[in-house]
């Protein structure tokens, strides 16, 4: 019950606020001057969601509730109240009661964390008070039957409502727990699945990899190929790439998992029989550590190369520059034969090894979080079917948020359509995280 209400609450904020805002813009142009500058920036950030709301392409299933103020909901109020109290207490503590150095540092930290939240909360309280005053003024004016003034007061109230709306959004953004690895670069690996015949999986893998390549161009990220193993007849067997840029992991983390395809193939071996084929491919997204995050001791590595047999050097002229690194403590094996130079291959293999070791650390972290969220990143998600691409019905469905997109060709271009889906996924994840946070607080208070 709690969760539903919280989720509804979040959606209402992002949606209805928009509708109101949008309609107001069209009807009251001159009012724009009074809007906060922050509101503009906020709107621009969510611009594509606004567009998608109005476009016919997306088939969202939102229920438009009434315009009652949803943030009077108990859990959120209570949580914010608690935080505020804690903040005031800390304030007093730090000023009046002497504490020792270690405690002081941690208290200071907590104080700094809570300061912005408390500030927003104060603003909200003030704004709500103002709204109440305006409401009472409105009523009194109603009795005095002064239409003009009443209209002005109503408009004032609307503006402050918007402000409260926006403040609450800010609050949500700061409250929602952030993933520690969001800012990292990633290594993206795609592997084709197996079918009983034909090469539909390999073709599909290539299309998906191309999609991610264009997506990283679209987001102005840097993509570096680590491995590209084509299959026969033009498909892709497996490939790996390193993508670096801003917040890459944050956007790509929900792409990991099994993608399923259903189509009647036009090219390739399977196209001889015009029947619907089903295939799968898997995408793995590994956050890439910085140099300092993962330490690999050269003594723990065993390097296998093709020149290891015989005397090597002038005696041998094989062009196999493939390198295989074995990390002895964990037993991880990484191969690379992408470059002509063995030294370069070794460097690339070392980087991939680092990422895989980092991934192990990340997994351990996440396993400890006993979460029942639908949008999960971790070992469980790797083997779950997350998305289906149905070419015959021209539809992409993401199973985790029950979201459909039409026009697969547009989607596979890896630009706006994919970006919208990812934003939607991130939003859902935020909602769930928020709900979990409030749940925890609610339970602990009891």
């Amino acid at each position, binding site marked *: 019950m709690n969760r539903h209400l919280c989720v509804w609450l979040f959606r209402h904020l992002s949606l209805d606020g928009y509708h109101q805002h949008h309609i107001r813009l069209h009807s009251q142009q001159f009012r724009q001057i009074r809007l906060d500058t922050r509101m503009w920036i906020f709107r621009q950030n969510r611009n594509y969601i606004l567009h998608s709301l109005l476009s016919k392409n997306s088939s969202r299933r939102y229920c438009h509730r009434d315009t009652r103020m949803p943030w009077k909901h108990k859990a959120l109020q209570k949580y914010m109240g608690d935080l505020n109290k804690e903040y005031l207490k800390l304030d007093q503590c730090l000023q009046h009661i002497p504490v020792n150095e270690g405690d002081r540092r941690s208290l200071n930290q907590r104080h700094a964390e809570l300061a912005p939240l408390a500030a927003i909360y104060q603003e909200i309280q003030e704004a709500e008070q103002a709204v109440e005053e305006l409401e009472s003024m409105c009523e009194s004016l109603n009795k005095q039957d002064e239409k003009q003034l009443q209209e002005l007061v109503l408009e004032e109230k609307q503006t402050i409502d918007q402000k409260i709306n926006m403040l609450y959004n800010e609050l949500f953004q700061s409250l929602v727990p952030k993933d520690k690895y969001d800012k990292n670069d990633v290594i993206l690996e795609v592997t084709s699945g197996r079918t009983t015949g034909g090469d539909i999986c390999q073709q599909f893998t290539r299309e998906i990899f191309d999609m991610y390549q264009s997506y990283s161009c679209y987001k102005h990220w840097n993509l570096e190929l680590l491995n590209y193993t084509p299959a026969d007849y033009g498909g892709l067997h497996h490939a790996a790439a390193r993508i670096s840029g801003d917040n890459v992991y944050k956007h790509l983390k929900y792409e990991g998992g099994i993608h399923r395809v259903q189509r009647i193939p036009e090219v390739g071996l399977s196209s001889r029989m015009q029947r619907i084929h089903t295939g799968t491919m898997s995408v793995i997204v590994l956050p890439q550590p910085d140099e300092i995050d993962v330490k690999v001791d050269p003594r723990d590595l065993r390097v296998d190369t093709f020149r290891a047999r015989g005397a090597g*050097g002038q*005696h041998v002229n094989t062009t196999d520059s493939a390198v295989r690194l074995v990390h002895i403590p964990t037993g991880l094996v990484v191969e690379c034969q992408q470059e002509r130079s063995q030294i370069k291959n*070794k460097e690339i293999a070392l980087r991939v090894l680092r990422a895989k070791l980092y991934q192990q650390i990340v997994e351990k972290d996440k396993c400890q979080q006993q979460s029942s969220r639908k949008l999960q990143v971790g070992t469980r998600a790797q083997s779950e079917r997350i998305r289906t691409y149905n070419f015959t019905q021209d539809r992409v469905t993401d199973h985790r948020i029950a979201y459909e997109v039409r026009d697969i060709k547009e989607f596979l271009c890896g630009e706006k359509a994919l970006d919208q889906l990812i934003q939607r996924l991130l939003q859902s994840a935020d909602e769930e995280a928020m709900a979990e946070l409030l749940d925890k607080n609610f339970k602990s208070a009891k």
Partner: protein
Amino acid sequence: MPVQYILREWDFQGLNLKMAPPVFIPRPETEELVDWVLEEEAQRPCAAGTQGGPLILEVGCGSGAIALSLLSQLPQQSQVIAVDKEEAAICLTHENAQRLQLQDRIRIVPLDVTLGTLPRIFLGGGVLDTERWWTHLLPWGPMDLVVSNPPYVFHQDMEQLAPEICSYEDPAALDGGKEGMDVIIHILALVPQLLKGSGSVFLEVEPRHPGLVSSWLRSQPDLHLDLVAVRRDFCGRPRFLHIRRSGPQCGCPVGT
């Protein structure tokens, strides 16, 4: 046919070099030789060469791989003198230097280091040696470094080499004589004449050579050379030697 000869080009240390039969194809191990030389050079104080960059002699330049990759990663003032006895190698090194725009910093000299008689000290007698061919190199000044990947395959192993090597690459670039030591000995013999007191020699050799080189140097005390370090390649075999003068490091070479 080796793929490098088919493609007519191959990479070495990040540089793309032209390949042409029968000139020797650079091996991946040699990239580590270049890395080692660069590491050592980076550690020395900057007053190494009189011009601000080291003067390097490369014996047996082949396609110019070692010389050009050193030049591309050392300061602008560094220079290389590359020698090879094979005309084809001289031409190929010249072409590669021009491709990489390094032709101003490299001097390519056709020279066979095994020709001419060995200096007096080997003959153990009063035979005077008139053909000091290495005096051709002296006008350029004493060297800071001598680098080489000399032919080091034992003569008896030559027939066991893979067919693509035997049939297409220059055997003279591979065959090092009875114990693979012929060219190595000649290089080490000319070091006292050409190398600065503080200079170093870096060689790529066969895994069996470190011991052989060490004992040979000890048998030639008049050379005053010591094997100071042996480095392993990425397969763990001892592959590279670092040799320096023993005793007080004097500034001028012996016997000019």
